[in-house]
Protein backbone atom coordinates (compact mmCIF):
# COMPACT_ATOMS: atom_id res chain seq x y z
CA UNK A 1 0.00 0.00 0.00
CA UNK A 2 2.55 2.53 1.04
CA UNK A 3 5.30 2.72 -1.50
CA UNK A 4 7.91 4.78 0.22
CA UNK A 5 8.29 5.68 3.84
CA UNK A 6 10.65 8.52 4.38
CA UNK A 7 11.28 10.21 7.67
CA UNK A 8 14.23 12.38 6.82
CA UNK A 9 12.76 15.34 8.54
CA UNK A 10 14.02 15.18 12.10
CA UNK A 11 10.87 16.88 13.38
CA UNK A 12 8.92 13.78 12.59
CA UNK A 13 11.16 10.98 13.77
CA UNK A 14 8.73 10.07 16.53
CA UNK A 15 6.22 9.02 13.91
CA UNK A 16 8.68 6.69 12.24
CA UNK A 17 7.38 3.21 11.56
CA UNK A 18 3.84 4.06 12.55
CA UNK A 19 2.44 2.56 9.40
CA UNK A 20 3.90 -0.86 10.00
CA UNK A 21 2.68 -1.62 13.51
CA UNK A 22 -0.98 -0.99 12.90
CA UNK A 23 -2.45 -2.81 9.93
CA UNK A 24 -6.03 -1.79 10.53
CA UNK A 25 -5.48 1.61 8.95
CA UNK A 26 -4.31 2.58 5.54
CA UNK A 27 -1.29 4.81 5.62
CA UNK A 28 -0.17 6.63 2.53
CA UNK A 29 3.33 7.94 2.78
CA UNK A 30 4.20 10.76 0.47
CA UNK A 31 7.87 11.01 -0.29
CA UNK A 32 9.18 14.20 1.14
CA UNK A 33 12.81 15.09 1.69
CA UNK A 34 12.88 18.11 3.98
CA UNK A 35 16.61 17.85 4.58
CA UNK A 36 17.17 17.83 0.83
CA UNK A 37 15.16 21.00 0.29
CA UNK A 38 16.91 22.69 3.18
CA UNK A 39 20.36 21.83 1.81
CA UNK A 40 19.19 23.10 -1.59
CA UNK A 41 18.20 26.37 0.06
CA UNK A 42 21.61 26.63 1.70
CA UNK A 43 23.26 26.06 -1.66
CA UNK A 44 21.27 29.00 -3.02
CA UNK A 45 22.18 31.12 0.01
CA UNK A 46 25.82 30.27 -0.71
CA UNK A 47 25.54 31.83 -4.19
CA UNK A 48 23.90 34.88 -2.60
CA UNK A 49 26.79 35.22 -0.18
CA UNK A 50 29.24 35.02 -3.08
CA UNK A 51 27.27 37.70 -4.94
CA UNK A 52 27.40 40.12 -2.02
CA UNK A 53 30.87 38.86 -1.07
CA UNK A 54 32.25 40.09 -4.38
CA UNK A 55 30.90 43.57 -3.61
CA UNK A 56 32.31 43.48 -0.09
CA UNK A 57 35.70 42.59 -1.60
CA UNK A 58 35.42 45.64 -3.88
CA UNK A 59 34.58 47.79 -0.86
CA UNK A 60 37.62 46.40 0.97
CA UNK A 61 39.95 47.13 -1.93
CA UNK A 62 38.70 50.69 -2.52
CA UNK A 63 38.66 51.50 1.16
CA UNK A 64 42.27 50.45 1.63
CA UNK A 65 43.22 52.48 -1.47
CA UNK A 66 41.69 55.69 -0.10
CA UNK A 67 40.57 55.45 3.56
CA UNK A 68 40.28 59.23 3.95
CA UNK A 69 37.75 59.55 1.11
CA UNK A 70 35.64 56.72 2.58
CA UNK A 71 35.80 58.42 5.96
CA UNK A 72 34.66 61.77 4.52
CA UNK A 73 31.93 60.29 2.30
CA UNK A 74 30.44 58.25 5.17
CA UNK A 75 29.81 61.52 7.05
CA UNK A 76 27.05 62.21 4.49
CA UNK A 77 25.04 59.17 5.59
CA UNK A 78 22.35 59.39 8.25
CA UNK A 79 23.42 57.13 11.15
CA UNK A 80 19.99 57.41 12.79
CA UNK A 81 18.14 56.13 9.71
CA UNK A 82 20.67 53.32 9.36
CA UNK A 83 20.33 52.34 13.03
CA UNK A 84 16.52 52.41 12.86
CA UNK A 85 16.60 50.19 9.78
CA UNK A 86 18.95 47.78 11.57
CA UNK A 87 16.52 47.46 14.47
CA UNK A 88 13.59 47.08 12.05
CA UNK A 89 15.33 44.22 10.21
CA UNK A 90 16.44 42.48 13.43
CA UNK A 91 12.86 42.68 14.70
CA UNK A 92 11.54 41.24 11.43
CA UNK A 93 13.99 38.35 11.79
CA UNK A 94 12.61 37.70 15.27
CA UNK A 95 8.98 37.70 14.12
CA UNK A 96 9.93 35.40 11.22
CA UNK A 97 11.39 32.83 13.60
CA UNK A 98 8.42 33.24 15.98
CA UNK A 99 6.07 32.53 13.06
CA UNK A 100 7.85 29.18 12.60
CA UNK A 101 7.55 28.37 16.33
CA UNK A 102 3.84 29.24 16.13
CA UNK A 103 3.22 26.93 13.16
CA UNK A 104 5.13 24.12 14.91
CA UNK A 105 2.68 24.53 17.79
CA UNK A 106 -0.28 24.64 15.40
CA UNK A 107 -1.13 28.27 16.24
CA UNK A 108 -2.09 29.23 12.72
CA UNK A 109 -3.48 32.67 13.54
CA UNK A 110 -0.46 33.60 15.63
CA UNK A 111 1.84 32.48 12.84
CA UNK A 112 -0.05 34.63 10.33
CA UNK A 113 0.14 37.56 12.73
CA UNK A 114 3.92 37.24 13.09
CA UNK A 115 4.34 37.00 9.32
CA UNK A 116 2.19 40.11 8.87
CA UNK A 117 4.45 41.94 11.33
CA UNK A 118 7.49 40.72 9.35
CA UNK A 119 6.04 42.19 6.15
CA UNK A 120 5.19 45.41 8.00
CA UNK A 121 8.84 45.63 9.08
CA UNK A 122 9.96 45.07 5.49
CA UNK A 123 7.69 47.92 4.34
CA UNK A 124 8.99 50.17 7.14
CA UNK A 125 12.52 49.42 5.96
CA UNK A 126 11.57 50.36 2.39
CA UNK A 127 9.90 53.62 3.46
CA UNK A 128 13.01 54.57 5.47
CA UNK A 129 15.16 53.74 2.47
CA UNK A 130 12.94 55.90 0.29
CA UNK A 131 13.41 58.91 2.58
CA UNK A 132 17.12 58.26 2.87
CA UNK A 133 17.69 58.02 -0.85
CA UNK A 134 15.43 60.98 -1.70
CA UNK A 135 17.39 63.14 0.73
CA UNK A 136 20.66 62.03 -0.94
CA UNK A 137 19.30 62.60 -4.43
CA UNK A 138 17.93 65.99 -3.34
CA UNK A 139 21.47 66.94 -2.30
CA UNK A 140 22.70 65.88 -5.71
CA UNK A 141 24.34 62.69 -4.46
CA UNK A 142 23.53 59.92 -6.91
CA UNK A 143 25.60 57.97 -9.42
CA UNK A 144 26.48 60.12 -12.40
CA UNK A 145 25.37 63.44 -10.91
CA UNK A 146 27.44 66.61 -11.47
CA UNK A 147 27.91 66.99 -7.73
CA UNK A 148 29.37 63.49 -7.36
CA UNK A 149 31.52 63.94 -10.48
CA UNK A 150 33.34 66.81 -8.74
CA UNK A 151 34.18 64.68 -5.71
CA UNK A 152 37.54 62.94 -5.20
CA UNK A 153 37.80 59.52 -6.87
CA UNK A 154 37.55 57.67 -3.54
CA UNK A 155 34.23 59.32 -2.67
CA UNK A 156 32.84 58.53 -6.12
CA UNK A 157 33.72 54.87 -5.46
CA UNK A 158 32.09 55.06 -2.03
CA UNK A 159 28.78 56.35 -3.33
CA UNK A 160 28.85 53.99 -6.29
CA UNK A 161 29.24 51.06 -3.91
CA UNK A 162 26.71 52.54 -1.48
CA UNK A 163 23.99 52.70 -4.12
CA UNK A 164 24.90 49.35 -5.65
CA UNK A 165 25.11 47.38 -2.38
CA UNK A 166 22.21 48.94 -0.47
CA UNK A 167 20.19 48.89 -3.73
CA UNK A 168 20.81 45.19 -4.28
CA UNK A 169 20.02 44.57 -0.62
CA UNK A 170 16.78 46.57 -0.85
CA UNK A 171 15.83 44.47 -3.88
CA UNK A 172 16.27 41.40 -1.69
CA UNK A 173 14.03 42.94 0.96
CA UNK A 174 11.28 43.41 -1.65
CA UNK A 175 11.67 39.81 -2.88
CA UNK A 176 11.68 38.54 0.71
CA UNK A 177 8.46 40.40 1.52
CA UNK A 178 6.78 38.85 -1.53
CA UNK A 179 7.97 35.36 -0.52
CA UNK A 180 6.59 35.85 3.00
CA UNK A 181 3.25 37.02 1.55
CA UNK A 182 3.14 33.81 -0.53
CA UNK A 183 3.86 31.81 2.66
CA UNK A 184 0.87 33.49 4.32
CA UNK A 185 -1.36 32.40 1.44
CA UNK A 186 0.04 28.84 1.76
CA UNK A 187 -0.72 28.83 5.49
CA UNK A 188 -4.28 29.98 4.88
CA UNK A 189 -4.66 27.26 2.24
CA UNK A 190 -3.04 24.75 4.65
CA UNK A 191 -0.20 23.93 2.24
CA UNK A 192 1.99 24.95 5.15
CA UNK A 193 0.87 23.35 8.40
CA UNK A 194 2.03 21.87 11.69
CA UNK A 195 3.53 18.81 10.01
CA UNK A 196 4.81 20.43 6.83
CA UNK A 197 6.49 23.78 7.20
CA UNK A 198 9.78 23.41 5.31
CA UNK A 199 8.67 26.13 2.84
CA UNK A 200 8.26 28.53 5.74
CA UNK A 201 11.63 27.48 7.18
CA UNK A 202 13.41 28.03 3.86
CA UNK A 203 11.70 31.40 3.39
CA UNK A 204 12.91 32.23 6.89
CA UNK A 205 16.47 31.30 5.92
CA UNK A 206 16.26 33.70 2.98
CA UNK A 207 14.90 36.46 5.19
CA UNK A 208 17.61 35.95 7.81
CA UNK A 209 20.27 36.13 5.09
CA UNK A 210 18.89 39.55 4.09
CA UNK A 211 19.22 40.55 7.74
CA UNK A 212 22.72 39.06 7.92
CA UNK A 213 23.93 41.13 4.95
CA UNK A 214 22.55 44.31 6.49
CA UNK A 215 24.43 43.51 9.73
CA UNK A 216 27.63 44.05 7.73
CA UNK A 217 26.39 46.83 5.43
CA UNK A 218 25.33 49.04 8.33
CA UNK A 219 28.68 49.45 10.12
CA UNK A 220 30.72 49.49 6.88
CA UNK A 221 28.75 52.33 5.26
CA UNK A 222 27.15 54.28 8.09
CA UNK A 223 29.42 53.96 11.10
CA UNK A 224 33.04 53.89 9.99
CA UNK A 225 33.79 57.58 9.76
Amino acid sequence: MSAVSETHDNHHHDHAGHGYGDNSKLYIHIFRDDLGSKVGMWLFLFTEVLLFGGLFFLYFGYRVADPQAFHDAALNLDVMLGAVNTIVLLTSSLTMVLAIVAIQRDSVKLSLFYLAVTIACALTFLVNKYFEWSAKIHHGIYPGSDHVAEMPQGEISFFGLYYLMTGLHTFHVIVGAIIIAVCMVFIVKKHINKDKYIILENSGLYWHLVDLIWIFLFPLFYLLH
Partner: protein
Amino acid sequence: MSNHAELHEEEHHEEHPGYGFYTAIWIGLIALTGLTVAIAGVDMGMYTVPLALLIACIKSMLVLNYFMHVKFDNILVKVFAAGCGVIIALVIIFLGFDVFIGGS
Protein backbone atom coordinates in the same frame (compact mmCIF):
# COMPACT_ATOMS: atom_id res chain seq x y z
CA MET B 1 8.34 13.55 39.73
CA SER B 2 8.63 17.27 39.22
CA ASN B 3 12.30 16.74 38.59
CA HIS B 4 11.50 14.40 35.79
CA ALA B 5 9.02 16.83 34.29
CA GLU B 6 11.61 19.59 34.34
CA LEU B 7 14.14 17.36 32.68
CA HIS B 8 11.69 16.48 29.97
CA GLU B 9 10.85 20.14 29.49
CA GLU B 10 14.54 20.90 29.09
CA GLU B 11 15.02 18.19 26.52
CA HIS B 12 12.03 19.42 24.62
CA HIS B 13 13.43 22.93 24.82
CA GLU B 14 16.69 21.93 23.21
CA GLU B 15 14.98 20.60 20.12
CA HIS B 16 12.56 23.47 19.54
CA PRO B 17 13.42 26.65 21.38
CA GLY B 18 10.34 28.68 22.29
CA TYR B 19 9.20 32.27 21.95
CA GLY B 20 11.11 33.49 25.01
CA PHE B 21 14.42 32.03 23.86
CA TYR B 22 14.31 33.81 20.50
CA THR B 23 13.19 37.06 22.10
CA ALA B 24 16.27 36.87 24.35
CA ILE B 25 18.50 36.44 21.29
CA TRP B 26 16.77 39.47 19.72
CA ILE B 27 17.44 41.58 22.84
CA GLY B 28 21.10 40.58 22.59
CA LEU B 29 21.20 41.62 18.92
CA ILE B 30 19.59 45.00 19.67
CA ALA B 31 22.06 45.56 22.53
CA LEU B 32 25.00 44.78 20.22
CA THR B 33 23.60 47.22 17.63
CA GLY B 34 23.45 49.91 20.34
CA LEU B 35 27.03 49.06 21.27
CA THR B 36 28.28 49.44 17.66
CA VAL B 37 26.56 52.82 17.31
CA ALA B 38 27.94 53.99 20.67
CA ILE B 39 31.47 52.82 19.83
CA ALA B 40 31.36 54.53 16.42
CA GLY B 41 31.21 57.91 18.17
CA VAL B 42 34.47 57.19 20.01
CA ASP B 43 37.67 57.60 18.05
CA MET B 44 39.83 54.55 18.56
CA GLY B 45 42.12 55.00 15.60
CA MET B 46 43.09 51.76 13.92
CA TYR B 47 40.88 49.65 16.21
CA THR B 48 37.59 51.20 15.04
CA VAL B 49 37.15 49.07 11.91
CA PRO B 50 38.22 45.68 13.39
CA LEU B 51 36.03 46.29 16.45
CA ALA B 52 32.95 47.18 14.35
CA LEU B 53 33.55 44.06 12.26
CA LEU B 54 34.05 41.91 15.36
CA ILE B 55 30.65 43.01 16.71
CA ALA B 56 29.09 42.40 13.28
CA CYS B 57 30.59 38.87 13.34
CA ILE B 58 29.18 38.16 16.81
CA LYS B 59 25.76 39.37 15.63
CA SER B 60 25.91 37.20 12.52
CA MET B 61 26.88 34.16 14.62
CA LEU B 62 23.76 34.74 16.75
CA VAL B 63 21.56 35.03 13.65
CA LEU B 64 23.16 32.00 11.96
CA ASN B 65 23.15 29.69 14.98
CA TYR B 66 19.77 30.51 16.47
CA PHE B 67 17.51 32.33 14.00
CA MET B 68 18.78 30.24 11.09
CA HIS B 69 18.81 27.21 13.37
CA VAL B 70 22.26 26.00 12.30
CA LYS B 71 23.21 25.05 15.88
CA PHE B 72 20.31 22.58 16.05
CA ASP B 73 20.53 21.41 12.47
CA ASN B 74 21.89 18.42 10.60
CA ILE B 75 25.69 18.13 10.22
CA LEU B 76 25.28 18.66 6.47
CA VAL B 77 23.79 22.12 7.02
CA LYS B 78 26.55 22.94 9.52
CA VAL B 79 29.21 21.97 6.99
CA PHE B 80 27.51 24.11 4.32
CA ALA B 81 27.33 27.18 6.53
CA ALA B 82 30.87 26.79 7.87
CA GLY B 83 32.28 26.09 4.41
CA CYS B 84 30.66 29.25 3.11
CA GLY B 85 32.24 31.31 5.89
CA VAL B 86 35.67 29.70 5.43
CA ILE B 87 35.70 30.43 1.69
CA ILE B 88 34.75 34.10 2.22
CA ALA B 89 37.39 34.44 4.97
CA LEU B 90 40.07 32.89 2.74
CA VAL B 91 39.27 35.23 -0.15
CA ILE B 92 39.39 38.24 2.21
CA ILE B 93 42.80 37.12 3.56
CA PHE B 94 44.28 36.62 0.09
CA LEU B 95 42.76 39.90 -1.07
CA GLY B 96 44.45 41.46 1.97
CA PHE B 97 47.85 40.27 0.74
CA ASP B 98 47.10 41.92 -2.57
CA VAL B 99 45.84 45.31 -1.37
CA PHE B 100 48.30 45.74 1.50
CA ILE B 101 51.56 44.44 0.02
CA GLY B 102 50.75 44.21 -3.67
CA GLY B 103 52.25 47.62 -4.50
CA SER B 104 50.83 49.76 -7.24
